[in-house]
């Protein structure tokens, strides 16, 4: 069986940044496995701008952002295989993949980085009543149709869900000549970035109907309309508030799910909230030598943070390969408190560097304090002007503070100012 130091699964922004980082940290024997016919992942169809402000201090489109990393992968001659679909990862780090001509191969890796990204929730996950006509797409599928293949999925559109992809597609369909009738959001707030509400909806007078959902889909061969209704606090439709919208297309932008079938096959422990692996600050999973980064770990709003996380995972994987002797490590776990829906990393192992902690809040908050503490004292405090579930928060915890922790638990809490 062929042996490879580092196998990276997925050639999107996470996989490419992880590969470059591992290479720069001394690992040359790398293989990136990508199932599509080009590197770049989802960025290739995200032709809008807004990427890279944090990482490159300039505003890039998705393909331009991808190119920054593709070019490094090419220049460093990091090996990659396209049209290669990983079928299985075993707990002892054997990776089985299928490629063109039906050939299948298994390689033995010293370390693996999971960078498979995420997929969209579809109609099946929503239990919407009604017929099953053509014209119902996830927003990402519609994006691929319009931006890569050059097809318009419809002319009169209703969008369910106000995640960023849904908002971006509302604008995209509008400037390509379609009429977007409304964007419905079941929550009382949008799941997308505020800037996207402004430049994708308000700019084109597209109504955003908060606390509304689609309760019925009409049409036999093709969608002819949808019924939407207001929902109550428990997100149950309120009878008598139904409203009919004629349309030929329903786009769904109702959440993303980390694509972790492979992690499951390797027996990696997953976090119920994020849908991704449970990791420590090095992005190492519960299986020693298997790392995870990017949207397969938790869904990010900004690719810039995906790249950062992937660089960390690449560095950690390189270190793992080069320093095989590992000592027993003290484990400290992050504890979820009220109003914090998840934290990544979920745990820490013998901290050597500062740790950036990403988390999401469970509701909309204004003027709150983030407090990090152990069982005895407060370790860190930060004021936040506003926080929303759709906007990931990050805080940097100093290594000196973390080394000083008493006990084996850290609490992240949200307090009113």
């Amino acid at each position, binding site marked *: 069986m062929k042996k490879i130091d580092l196998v990276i699964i997925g050639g999107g922004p996470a996989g490419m940044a992880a590969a470059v980082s591992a290479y720069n940290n001394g690992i040359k024997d790398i293989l990136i496995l990508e199932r599509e016919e080009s590197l770049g992942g989802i960025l*290739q169809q995200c*032709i*809008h*701008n*807004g990427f890279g*402000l944090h990482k490159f201090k300039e*505003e*890039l*489109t*998705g*393909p*331009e952002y991808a*190119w920054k990393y593709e070019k490094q992968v*090419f*220049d460093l001659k990091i090996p990659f295989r396209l049209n290669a679909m990983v079928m299985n990862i075993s707990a002892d780090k054997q990776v089985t993949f299928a490629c063109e001509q039906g050939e299948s191969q298994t390689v033995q890796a010293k370390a693996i980085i999971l960078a498979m990204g995420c997929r969209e929730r579809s109609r099946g996950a929503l239990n919407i009543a009604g017929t099953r006509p053509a014209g119902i797409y996830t927003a990402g599928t519609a994006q691929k149709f*319009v*931006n*890569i*293949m*050059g097809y318009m999925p419809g002319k009169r559109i209703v969008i369910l869900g106000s995640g960023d992809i849904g908002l971006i597609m509302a604008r995209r369909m509008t*400037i*390509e000549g379609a009429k977007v009738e409304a964007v419905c959001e079941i929550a009382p707030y949008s799941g997308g*970035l*505020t*800037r996207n*509400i*402004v*430049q994708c909806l308000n*700019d084109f007078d597209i109504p955003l109907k908060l606390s509304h959902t689609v309760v019925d889909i009409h049409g036999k061969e093709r969608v002819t309309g949808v019924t939407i209704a207001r929902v109550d606090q428990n997100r149950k439709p309120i009878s008598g508030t139904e409203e009919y919208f004629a349309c030929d297309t329903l786009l769904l932008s109702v959440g993303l799910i980390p694509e972790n079938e492979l992690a499951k096959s390797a027996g990696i422990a997953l976090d119920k909230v994020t849908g991704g692996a449970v990791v420590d600050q090095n992005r190492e999973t519960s299986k020693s030598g298997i790392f995870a980064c990017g949207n397969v770990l938790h869904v990010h*709003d*900004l690719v810039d943070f995906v790249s950062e996380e992937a660089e960390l995972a690449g560095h950690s994987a390189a270190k793992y390969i080069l320093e095989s002797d590992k000592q027993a490590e003290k484990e400290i776990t992050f504890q979820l408190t009220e109003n914090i829906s998840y934290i990544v990393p979920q745990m820490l192992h013998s901290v050597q560097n500062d740790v950036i902690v990403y988390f999401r809040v469970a509701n909309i908050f204004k003027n709150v304090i983030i407090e990090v503490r152990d069982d005895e004292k407060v370790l860190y405090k930060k004021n936040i002007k506003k926080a929303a579930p759709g*906007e990931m928060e990050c805080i940097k915890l100093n290594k000196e503070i973390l080394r000083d922790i008493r006990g084996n638990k850290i609490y992240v809490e949200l307090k009113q100012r």
Partner: protein
Amino acid sequence: MNLTCIVCPLGCELTVEKENGRVISVSGNTCPRGEKYAIGECTNPVRTLTTTARVAGGGLVSVKSDKPLPKGDLNEYMNIINQLNLAPPIHIGDILIKNINNTGIHIVATKNIKGVDYNA
């Protein structure tokens, strides 16, 4: 007047005070770009346009305006871009339309189409 800044993902809530149609103060911004954005929104709102253009022989190339364009004339820009039928190879940054609609702003490619094949 209240605005939400769209310069970066922070999305600051801006308050703009105007007198006789002129902006006299901007507050709520975290950085100087917010003030610039607010004044622009009140005088000449602009947006970066991103879309696709046809490539001869099939397929699309993604494109953008190299600077933000006055947002009112979106349909005109789209009509001009939709007439393109570009011959590959196309490289990121190639100017595909110079000075679109006499704005002084160019439409440039944001993707490489063939020609650049490091893997060959």
